[in-house]
């Protein structure tokens, strides 16, 4: 970015000279202006955006990420919105509309068609009058800053497996950072590095500018499994970290009781964790974390082990504490694999890719709290994230410096039954559907849905495109076929597209006894995956291979046997023996 321009803009903002700031933006080309605008706090963006001429606003809407442009657009009254959209050049306007998910697009159309209410314009005008000068001149320094951190673990065959690719990341005061990514992508590992539990294999982590390893960071972690000590009472559990800080009995007691009350656990002091429900246990987990008044509160999938209602409840209470500033915590770092949870809570969302983990996107969600799951803006973000994670080519950022060897094809962990179910649903919906709608309809979390989507794509039955899933002709045939025809079609698709099953099939057909120990393939996979992943790959391959009548599996001997009567040609050759 251009430092003098940035300085000039900041200076005008801090003096309350909004028009001057708009003029600075006006002089830049739209892409640079969009970048500069995005670097400001959202409130300032909104105020600036309201002051712009429709022409500048239109140029910026085209240059900004569409989800952000959509939210900014709504900072202006409807008639002005309409004017801005009119000023966009037709190609860009079409692209902007095209990228919006159905709800958001629909709402925008409705708004633009509607006559603006009489008072709306004046209201907007009134808002324009009271423009405060911005007190905070420069952005605050980050609490935690990770520079080029990497992490590798040992593979079963002794080699190194990189789990986290070189990553830069910082956490600043006043924000909830939601780290989103599929399971096994390295979220927890990243959290462990940032919270000082494990050192990175390379790179530095700074805590207020000093190396983390040499500081005593005031952080706390809320764990998915609660990690309470079952032999201690609720009160004693909360006192554990206070005792570690050498706090004397009375003060410790008082602090623990106060924290317990703030999470709604009054009267449960003498209970043991095993007497409590999951939600109550996690409350104790929160109380233990909040008792130390951490500067950053880390949470590793804190709601994953809870049922939907309890989780929703607890999220609400946490947000009440946070937005009501009832806790001195400066920042929250939340790890989750649940897209809605990330959009619900995060001020900033970081999306991780996997193998190895690397930041695919890092953006702000400027929606006010509490957020409405069904609002168009909310769905806009949900849709955007789906789009992001189903499209590997949408990766931002430079390619990694050293050309990695081509990774071994990784089977998505989907059952054939799931694949068939998804295709049937898609076919019933006319062959194309938004992914978050599919997730909702099937009542699947993204973690369970994504492998199925990937599998249909891998087998050529469907393709995902901008957050939508579209069935292919072969997918349509599959969805409409009977069970036997499905299995044959599945077999052909698998043998055409799946490396591991191709290898298995080739090995089985070429061996004279048509049998092969599974261990052989485990050894092959050991060179490419971690132990747990090897097991999952084998499991998935067994499901697929058996469904496609490629082989049978004998668990007693742990061997694969070629399935003889698979097709008429094979049957014919079998008869010759």
């Amino acid at each position, binding site marked *: 970015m251009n430092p003098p321009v940035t300085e000039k803009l900041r200076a005008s903002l801090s003096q309350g000279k909004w028009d001057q700031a708009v003029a600075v933006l006006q002089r830049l080309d739209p892409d640079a202006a969009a970048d500069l605008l995005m670097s400001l706090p959202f409130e300032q963006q909104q105020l600036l955006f309201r002051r712009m001429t429709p022409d500048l606003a239109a140029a910026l809407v085209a240059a900004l990420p569409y989800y952000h442009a959509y939210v900014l657009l709504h900072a202006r009254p409807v008639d002005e919105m309409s004017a801005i959209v009119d000023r966009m050049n037709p190609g860009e306007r079409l692209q902007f509309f095209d990228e919006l998910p159905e709800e958001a697009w629909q709402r925008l159309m409705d708004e633009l068609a509607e006559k603006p209410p009489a008072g709306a314009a004046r209201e907007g005008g009134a808002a324009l009058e009271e423009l405060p000068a911005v007190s905070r001149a420069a952005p605050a320094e980050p609490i935690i800053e990770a520079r080029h951190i990497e992490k590798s673990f040992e593979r079963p065959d002794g080699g190194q497996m990189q789990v986290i690719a070189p990553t830069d990341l910082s956490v600043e005061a006043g924000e909830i950072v939601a780290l989103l990514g599929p399971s096994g992508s390295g979220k927890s590992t990243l959290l462990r590095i940032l919270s000082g*539990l494990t050192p990175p294999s390379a790179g530095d982590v700074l805590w207020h500018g000093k190396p983390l390893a040499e500081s005593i960071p005031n952080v*706390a*972690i809320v764990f998915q499994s609660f990690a309470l000590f079952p032999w201690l009472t609720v009160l004693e559990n909360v006192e554990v*970290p206070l*005792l*570690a800080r050498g706090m*004397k009995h009375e003060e410790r007691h008082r602090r623990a009781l106060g924290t317990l009350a703030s999470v709604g656990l009054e009267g449960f002091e003498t209970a043991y964790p095993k007497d409590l429900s999951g939600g109550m246990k996690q409350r104790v987990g929160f109380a233990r974390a909040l008792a130390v008044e951490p500067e950053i509160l880390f949470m590793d999938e804190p709601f994953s082990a809870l049922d939907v209602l309890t989780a929703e409840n607890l999220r609400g209470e946490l947000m009440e504490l946070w937005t009501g500033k009832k806790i001195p915590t400066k920042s929250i770092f939340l790890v989750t694999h649940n897209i809605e949870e990330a959009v619900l809570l995060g001020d900033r969302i970081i999306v991780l890719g996997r193998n190895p983990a690397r930041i695919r996107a890092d953006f702000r969600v400027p929606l006010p709290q509490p957020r409405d799951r069904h609002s168009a803006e909310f769905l806009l973000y949900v849709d955007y994230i789906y789009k992001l994670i189903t499209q590997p080519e949408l990766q931002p950022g430079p390619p990694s410096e050293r050309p990695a060897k081509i990774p071994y094809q990784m089977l998505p962990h989907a059952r054939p039954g799931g694949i068939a179910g998804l295709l049937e649903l898609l076919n019933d919906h006319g062959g194309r559907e938004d992914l978050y709608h599919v997730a909702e309809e099937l009542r699947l979390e993204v973690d369970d849905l994504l492998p199925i989507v990937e599998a249909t794509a891998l087998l050529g039955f469907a393709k995902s495109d901008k957050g939508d899933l579209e069935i292919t002709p072969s997918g349509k045939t599959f969805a409409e076929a009977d069970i036997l025809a499905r299995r044959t079609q599945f077999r052909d698709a698998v043998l055409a597209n799946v490396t591991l099953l191709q290898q298995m099939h080739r090995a089985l057909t070429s061996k004279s006894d048509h049998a092969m120990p599974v261990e052989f393939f485990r050894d092959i996979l050991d060179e490419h995956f971690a132990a747990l992943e090897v097991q999952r790959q084998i499991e998935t391959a067994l499901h697929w291979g058996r469904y496609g009548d490629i082989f049978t599996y004998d668990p007693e001997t742990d061997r694969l046997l070629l399935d003889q009567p698979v097709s008429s040609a094979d049957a014919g050759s079998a008869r010759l023996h």
Partner: protein
Amino acid sequence: MAPPVEPKSLAWSPSSSLSSLLRDLPIVFAALALLFSFLSLARYWASPVTAQAPIQLNPGALPRYALFSLARIIIAYAFSLMLTLVYAYVAAHNARAERFLIPLLDTLQSIPVLSFLPPVMVSMVALFPTRQLGVELGCILLILTGQVWNMTFSVYASMKSIPREMAEAAQTYRLSWWQRFIQLELPYSAIGLVWNSMMSVAGGWFFLMACEMFVLENHDLRLPGLGSYLQTAANAGDTRAILWGVVVMVAVIVLMDQVVWRPIIAWSEKFKFEQVEASQTPHSPVLDLLRRSRILSRTVRATVAPARETLTLYFGRQHASSRGGRGWTKWIARLLSVAALLGVLYAIAKMTGMLAMLSRPELRSIFVGAGATFLRVEFTLLLAGLWTIPVGVYIGLRPRLAAIAQPIAQVAASVPATALFPIVLLFLIRLGGGLGIGSIVLLLLGTQWYILFNVIAGATAIPTDLKEVCDVFGLGRVERWRRLLLPGIFPYLITGFVTASGGAWNASIVAEYFRFQNQTFSTTGLGAVISHATDSGNFRVLLGATVVMAVIVVTVNRLLWRPLYALANTRFKLEG
């Protein structure tokens, strides 16, 4: 109905004080009895050496002997506990020490008690040449060598298996080593430690006869106690005295079970690492009594609680002010490891020198003995399996029967087989069988329980729905065993066999060689070789035989049991 309001701090109504006094009475008596026993023990230990105390066979002497034996076992256990905690802690926390300590533990575990006798005794007597204390300490250490290893292993394994997120919670919240130990590691290890302690103490009773009366360098050493009483009675062929001794021993064991182990087990229930309340929990009236006692709770509040608080705060502050290990502790650790290394090298050199002097007939007797004991142990395990599997499954599948049978079997198992040896032997000799068959019966008596308990536990744990599925499909008896019962109990069975196998090798030293009615009965076997070598002071043979036994036990563990164990934990695990 409501009593008049009294000032809270001085609520001392006569009725409540009387009832609380009555409740505390047993505890007060117990404390006085303890004090008295301690005084008499102290007087005895400080007395000059009387290595050959005459053992009186009249029943009136038994309470005193029982007290002495009990004290030895308790003290040995206390030392075992300390050693266990230190050893397991170091092994679990220091990766470099772990690589050396765990194989060492494996080896020590496979060395029979008697092989420790000469070095332990000689060094202890040298330490306190003029007081009874020296011989006593030797005997206590001997008992310790039979108790400590499995406890150490259990604590080590527990500490290593602490769930990752709990350990991470301890790390993030910066618990000092002390707080982490007290609030996380020790509680997490508690259940395993309690069960292994019970087994260890039972082992102490088992080897009591061997530990209290033995020949060392032509000195016939005997310490007054139940073990030596039984041994002497057996030597004299006094059946009545043997019976008295056995009765008293069983009484002591049952009493210990009620007064010590049951309360501890019931209390340790709170360390169970499960997130939901179990439906059935062990229960102990003695524990209830202790819990309700005012004196006790006041004493605890006045002593233990403040001490714990002070210690934890102290270590917490120390931990907060220092980061990383201090220089001098590292140096001490380095110095210690160098010293240990030198010691080991020296010991190895000495050992090889001694082993090189073994004569050909001695070598032959060792290897022939090893073969014989190997066959005997395996045969014993086979026999034990043959009867315990069907019986255990039968009991385990019937919850009501299991509830009755389990306590009975526990008492039966807690009677040390060694105490019954004389009676069994008498019977066998009358029948005309020698120690050849006798030793197998003795080994069986000592080891079958481990398998039985585990089979019962395994059969109880088979999920009901699986049993119902078998009924629905109308599986025949054979199919049922093949498809459900055997796979279901397999992991438990392996656990039982591992313990029984180690126990049987160790027990061979008392089963294959027995002094009875002034004769020595023995049969071909490694245990007999070891016992004989101890008796005759032949250290070369003792060392050689011990090394062979350790090698065999460790090898069998590594090559047979451990793979089976791994198999049991992967393929045959019933997820429920």
